[in-house]
């Protein structure tokens, strides 16, 4: 790896994240991704620039979004000769675009790249029922009038009702929240610990806004200048008053509320990546270096591991490869799908037996210093437009690392983890420049 050149983060831009069915209700994935991209172009003077490659994606995708990223490029002021492609890895989409594009930069295939993602839970694709769809497809295949009539006659009144997408796992029928509720109970994570993590997320995000941290990371959109989900004035009392929404079958072991779970959110984010030469020749800043990344997956279908536990494995393998421990990091950016997710990961890494038997380590991986965790807030406060979360995290962490500079004579270092549907997880390491 030492023979490869560096891939660096120049900067990022996102639109504020909005709660679903709010200010962005009428904006599509394409609208939001284009808006975020245009803000990035404006910030770094990329008008008419031919970027090496743009990769982005969306999790909730319309069939019309088949070439979403290329369409966003065509709708932006980037050179129309900029190639683009779509990525879809559920909630890890954004981080995966960063990692795959930085690999291309490291290999010398491209000099510059934009990674990103957008998701709208408001402008969600509504599909027709399976009965109607099959009948219409059969009608389409029918050649004779008789065949056509037979196809139409198969439509039943109940087939006319539209179907909205769910967040249920296809193989288990359990929603992501219900899956996490099982994991949260399994790792004995308390309601109080989850509410405290949620409170810290809101406080840290509010403080970051107060000190102007997001001024060069965000472009206002549709009247929003801050993330719509942020509750700067929330308190443990308020969070404690919320009803549990997931895992009700666990009875008094149910601990997950709307306050310690992320809401459905709309938004988009982008990150500008480059080789050091390209950044220098364009007179652009360098915030951080993309060191390495690792993807993992767990066998959650019959409950061997919890649905959202893959980051536990991704982080362990990544640290092993890099020869690093939690002590070597100054910032931890762990995506908060649910407070219980992050706390289950921390518990697993502190569990000697689990680390020995499942991670193949000699003992516990270690303890994460909570003072270094999500210091500028994370998804519980900002919201989580699935594919846009990776870009938000990478741009924020890169800026935070750059501000910190050196620690004990080495560059400040940050660790990212993102869990995703399908038992997926992706981790990455960044270093200050």
């Amino acid at each position, binding site marked *: 790896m030492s023979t490869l050149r560096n891939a660096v983060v120049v900067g990022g831009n996102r639109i504020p994240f909005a709660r679903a069915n709010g200010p962005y209700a009428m904006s599509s994935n394409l609208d939001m991704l284009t808006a975020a991209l245009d803000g990035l172009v404006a910030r770094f003077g990329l008008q008419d620039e031919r970027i090496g490659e743009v990769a982005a994606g969306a999790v909730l995708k319309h069939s019309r979004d088949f070439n979403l990223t290329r369409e966003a490029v065509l709708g932006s002021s980037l050179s129309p000769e900029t190639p683009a492609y779509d990525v879809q890895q559920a909630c890890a989409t954004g981080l995966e675009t960063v990692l795959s594009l930085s690999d291309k930069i490291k290999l010398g295939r491209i000099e510059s790249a934009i990674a990103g993602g957008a998701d709208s839970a408001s402008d969600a694709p509504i599909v027709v029922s399976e009965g109607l769809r099959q009948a219409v497809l059969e009608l389409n295949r029918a050649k004779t009038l008789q065949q056509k009539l037979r196809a139409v006659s198969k439509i039943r009144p109940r087939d006319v009702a539209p179907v909205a997408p769910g967040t249920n796992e296809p193989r288990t029928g359990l929603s992501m929240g219900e899956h996490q509720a099982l994991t949260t109970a399994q790792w004995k994570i308390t309601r109080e610990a989850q509410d405290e993590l949620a409170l810290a997320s809101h406080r840290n995000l509010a403080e970051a806004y107060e000190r102007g941290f997001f001024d060069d990371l965000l472009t206002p959109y549709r009247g929003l200048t801050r993330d719509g989900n942020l509750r700067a004035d929330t308190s443990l009392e308020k969070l404690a008053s919320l009803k549990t929404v997931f895992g009700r079958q666990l009875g008094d072991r149910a601990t997950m509320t709307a306050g310690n779970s992320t809401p459905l959110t709309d938004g988009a984010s982008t990150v500008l990546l480059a080789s050091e030469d390209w950044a220098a020749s364009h007179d652009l800043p360098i915030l951080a270096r993309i060191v390495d990344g690792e993807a993992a997956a767990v066998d959650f279908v*019959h*409950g061997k591991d919890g649905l959202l536990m893959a980051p536990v494995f991704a982080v362990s393998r990544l640290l092993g490869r890099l020869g690093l421990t939690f002590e070597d990091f100054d910032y931890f950016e762990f995506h908060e799908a649910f407070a219980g997710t992050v706390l289950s990961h921390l518990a697993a890494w502190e569990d000697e037996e689990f680390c020995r038997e499942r991670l193949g380590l000699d003992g516990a991986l270690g303890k994460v210093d909570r003072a270094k965790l999500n210091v500028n807030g994370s998804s519980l406060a900002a919201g989580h437009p699935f594919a846009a979360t990776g870009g938000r995290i990478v741009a924020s962490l890169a800026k935070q690392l750059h501000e910190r500079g050196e620690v004990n004579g080495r560059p400040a270092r940050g660790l990212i983890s993102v869990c995703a549907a399908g038992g997926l997880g992706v981790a990455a390491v960044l270093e200050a420049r």
Partner: protein
Amino acid sequence: MSAAPARGIETVELPEMPSLSRLYVGAAREAAKKLMKKGAMRAALPAARHHVIGVRPDLGKMTAYQSLLGETKLDIAPAGYLHALAFPAAMSVMAREDFPLPLLGMVHVRNKVEYRLPVLYPDLLEVTAWAEGLAGHRAGTQVGLVVEVRHAGNDDVAWRGVSTYLARGVFLPGLDKPSPAGPRGEFRAPLPTALWRLGSETGREYAAVSGDFNPIHLSSISARALGMRRSIAHGMYTASRALAEVGAQKGDAFAWDVTFEAPVFLPARVCLNIADSVDDHGAWERSNFAGWSPTSGRRHFVGSVGRL
């Protein structure tokens, strides 16, 4: 038939696979007759095997079955589809005049399948069915219906199913009634690994792909006519769906066993737990499964899929 029939057993060649709906209509008539002859029924099963040749999986029906049960649409016939395809031969045995139990109202209590050789959809098959194991039960009389599926011209059994039915409240002379079983171990629900949301159409949908139009599965009205408070899901629907969810790890040859307990009244939410176990080399050996009601906590079914 390639397998030699046992001595004294008559082999009845059926011209084609019988239609279940016609058997049900016949069964209703037969039920009235048997009711009149009650007490005259001998505690003996028909000394006959029903044999059908020229049976072939129907691609359209197999596809519909795969869609409904969540099976990937591969060319290999799912074990539950073969049950649906071949079981009418067993039903025709139960519909015989000399079959000692009433066909309607029998309860499916257990189903065991061994799927030994893969059956692909264009394969030509032979089906043999007979009844065996007539036995007293504390709640009535139970009987096993055996179905064997072979590839045409091949002696080896590709698929073998034994479906155990209980005729509740029917006691035949000469059959010992076993003493009541001790209290069943209390079921404590494990954490679910999956959740099924079964609509009221579940019974009609499975009837459409399996051909099993028993009225107790079709609608509340038809179920009430037979003394049920609401329609119930086919046991084989729940067992087949659990089998599908065990997944590809089971390979092509496996044993599949399920015991049906409390019926699933529709609509329903059913919690499922599948627990996999591996052998010393870490290879899949077995998956135990159970389904229960998240509201009442009662277990609906319990079973396993294991390597053959």
